[in-house]
């Protein structure tokens, strides 16, 4: 995933966890409902087909019954005119028709049974589809409400982003201030420890001043050397021995302080 996307995603997840970019379940529900309606209409068509077949069979039975009645009449007439042969022929045909009628009646009963079963199944399915429709509408209403909630969340996410931006700017400013303070503190410590020269204390930062400093430190060394050399001769103690003179002077002054301090 690209860096820009990753940073954006981190912002999103931080600003709002309510964002859900899943596909719209309302469309899925509607599609499912449509499928159920299709199925229901197929069952209805099946019921209609069976009913049509049953009606066709009933019509055939009716026609055959009419034909059978006609043959019965013809047979009676033939007996009336003394034509037994014709009457026998008519009754034979009628007998064939009766067999057909019985078969067709069995078929009709069978179709009627099927039709009743299908009508029952259709009614059950219709109830289920109705229930699904109600549930679907409830879910859709809930989803629409949730979606509105999500929109609020998205707006909040925008605010979160703004806040993050401001927060970042403040954080960076604070970090820089802290860095500068830490640096200033470190410099103070280095000056105090002598590792760094304090520029404000060095009023003579140029070459001439440095040379004069070097000369004066050089003459100090010479003077010290001379003192040490002189220190090896005994008479020099009275004349230039500062250290011994100081050591003797201190107890004397201490004594003077003690005597002076008494009433």
């Amino acid at each position, binding site marked *: 995933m*690209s*860096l*820009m*996307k*990753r*940073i*954006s995603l*981190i*912002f*999103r*997840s*931080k*600003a709002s966890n309510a964002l859900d970019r899943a596909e719209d379940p309302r469309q899925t529900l509607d599609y499912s409902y449509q499928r159920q309606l299709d199925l229901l209409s197929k069952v209805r068509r099946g019921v209609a087909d069976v009913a049509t077949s049953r009606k066709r069979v009933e019509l055939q039975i009716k026609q055959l019954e009419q034909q059978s009645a006609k043959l019965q009449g013809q047979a009676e007439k033939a007996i009336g005119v003394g034509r037994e042969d014709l009457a026998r022929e008519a009754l034979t045909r009628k007998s064939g028709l009766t067999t057909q009628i019985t078969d067709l009646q069995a078929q009709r009963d069978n179709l009627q049974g099927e039709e009743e079963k299908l009508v029952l199944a259709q009614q059950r399915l219709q109830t289920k589809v109705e229930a699904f429709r109600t549930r679907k509408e409830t879910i859709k209403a809930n989803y629409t409400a949730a979606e509105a909630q999500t929109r609020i969340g*998205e*707006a909040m*996410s*925008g*605010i*979160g*982003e*703004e*806040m*993050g*931006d401001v*927060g*970042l*700017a403040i954080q*960076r400013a604070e970090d820089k201030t802290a860095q500068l303070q830490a640096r200033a503190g470190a410099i103070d410590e280095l000056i105090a420890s002598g590792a760094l020269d304090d520029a404000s204390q060095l009023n003579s930062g140029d070459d001439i001043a440095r040379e004069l400093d070097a000369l004066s430190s050089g003459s100090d060394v010479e003077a010290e050397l001379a003192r040490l050399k002189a220190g090896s001769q005994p008479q020099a103690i009275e004349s230039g021995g500062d250290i011994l003179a100081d050591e003797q002077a201190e107890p004397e002054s201490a004594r003077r302080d003690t005597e002076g301090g008494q009433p």
Partner: protein
Amino acid sequence: MIVRILGEGQYDLEDHALDALNGLDTQIESAIESGDEAMFRTALEGLLAAVRASGTHHDPESLDESDLILPPGDATLEEVRELLGDDGLIPG
């Protein structure tokens, strides 16, 4: 498409401008992975410059969520790495 440069604001960009940015974005990503500070700096500066050049300032009055968010121009490699860490950019 709205792109936010952190600490700087939002820019409106045409979608086709994204193709040009993707190359630089990939460079930044690989620079972070390899820890190449110089490459990271060049790529980030290039990316931000491209956004500024090809985009216009988004109306600051309208509160819109950005499609993409970019680190600030002076961000270091380490800061961006942290930004992508568990704590993220916005505390809490």
